[in-house]
């Protein structure tokens, strides 16, 4: 069985306080690492989108991924009230036209409320076009707010990156209630965690990610390779679930 990997969590660009040991997130370095670990494609965001400003980071992201068919841009958004971006019903279709199939938000580092009151206009458009919204649950560890947003916008595809073994007690009840929450697993290094999760919530909620350049793909790839789950389930986590999310958005773009 030949399996293809699609990494759902890679960061391009330079962080301000880069640890000296960390691989620099240049396109060249990331592509070399993808080659080293036989990862076909990656969804990438840009460090400057978190640190400098999303508008700067998005410009760099789209420039750096242009002409790189293995790297798919995940654009960073802000809520509409401060008008730092065009209105969502205008801006998101523009992103679709540019080939963007996923977006992310960083409510913690960008200092806004991740609520219907602040972001509802944005959530409505994202839900309508089935564009997945990525949130780093490792830094935004507010499962109550995630639960509320998922309840208010049941068609919104929420992808929680950096899902951790430490989140399980908060996550399980939310996952039982909400259909469109998905989890990226590079920090879900729980003993028999996949084996426990899949019978309860389904394999369709899990996405492989590496967390590069901070983390090595070797951890999560080996965990997935050695898990006591079916080869078909491994393939879904390794690539197919993410492709399904992005294609949902593609179908809307085609219409």
């Amino acid at each position: 069985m030949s399996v293809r990997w699609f990494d759902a969590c890679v960061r391009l660009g330079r962080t301000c306080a880069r640890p000296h040991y960390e691989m620099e997130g240049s396109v060249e370095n990331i592509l070399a690492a993808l080659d080293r670990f036989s990862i076909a494609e990656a969804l990438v965001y840009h460090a400057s989108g978190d640190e400098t400003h999303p508008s700067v980071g998005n410009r760099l992201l789209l420039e750096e991924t242009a002409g790189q068919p293995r790297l798919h841009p995940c654009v960073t958004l802000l809520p509409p009230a401060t008008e730092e971006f065009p209105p969502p019903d205008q801006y998101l279709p523009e992103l679709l036209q540019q080939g963007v199939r996923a977006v992310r938000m960083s409510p913690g580092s960008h200092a806004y409320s991740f609520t219907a009151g602040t972001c509802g206009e944005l959530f409505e458009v994202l839900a309508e076009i089935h564009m997945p919204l990525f949130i780093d649950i490792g830094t935004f560890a507010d499962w109550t707010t995630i639960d509320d947003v998922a309840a208010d916008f049941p068609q919104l595809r929420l992808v929680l990156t950096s899902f951790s073994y430490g989140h399980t007690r908060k996550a399980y009840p939310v996952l039982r209630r909400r259909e469109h929450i998905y989890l990226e697993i590079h920090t879900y290094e729980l003993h028999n965690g996949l084996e426990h999760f899949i019978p309860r919530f389904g394999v369709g909620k899990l996405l492989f990610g590496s967390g590069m350049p901070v983390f090595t793909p070797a951890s999560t790839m080996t965990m997935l390779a050695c898990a006591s789950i079916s080869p078909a389930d491994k393939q879904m986590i390794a690539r197919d679930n993410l492709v399904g999310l992005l294609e949902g958005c593609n179908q809307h773009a085609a219409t």
Partner: protein
Amino acid sequence: MPPLDFSKVTAAVADLASVKSYLDDILVIDCHAHIGPHSRYFVPEDDIDHIIAAMDSIGVDRVGINALAALEGDYESGNDVTAEAIRRYPDRVIGHCCVNPNYPDAVAAETIRCFEQLGCKMLKFHGGWHQIEPGHANYRPAIEYCAARKIPLLTHLPDYIKSLPGYVAVAREYPDMPFIIAHATCPTAIDEIIEHCAHVENIFFDTTGYPKYYSSIERIVNGGGEDRVLFGSDIAWLNLAHEIGPIVFADLSDTAKEKILGFNFNKIMQEITI
């Protein structure tokens, strides 16, 4: 042994043949693991049977282990859980003796009970939970017992940066006793650990918990030497495969990987004179 081809990890997603076949050919010992539940996280299947099953599925031969209860206040019943695992899997389980320095009157007696009645072969301090520095007098009866027998001490330091000078001083007092730093590849501590400990030959470095950081294995090997790095996993909290993958696929020689995965720790174990 043929070098491991990185492209095989792709094939390994279909089954674990390539990883397991590599590990089956070498001695693999996990020096840092735990049995049983703990309050902080939900862990499915945390008993010794499931830990042994996970080891078998990947190709890990032996495990150094303690019950998490033994690191808390109820350390005596925790050590009994460890002893039961030793009794059930004597060829696979290397028991950690855990003492709690906050109950100093019991440290010496519990140390003797662990090594002379329960069959333990390692000493474990968790200064982070005990909130006591490894050089504290309350730990000394256990250290002196183990130093006389070359029993290794695995230590989770309460604060890696502040604790290191005191830890190094204790290690220098007992140069024939192996001192193993738990979680030595932690990104916020690895530089200080290398700086303070690389020149102290009886200090070893456990990979547990942080090999996932890019190039952390290569970094601790370059800083501490391939003869002093030991594989640890934190199973049943953490996932054995997640912890071992970065070593198997590290940019190191096969010889270095074999040393880290089992040879180095086996050499320590062979020196014990209980």
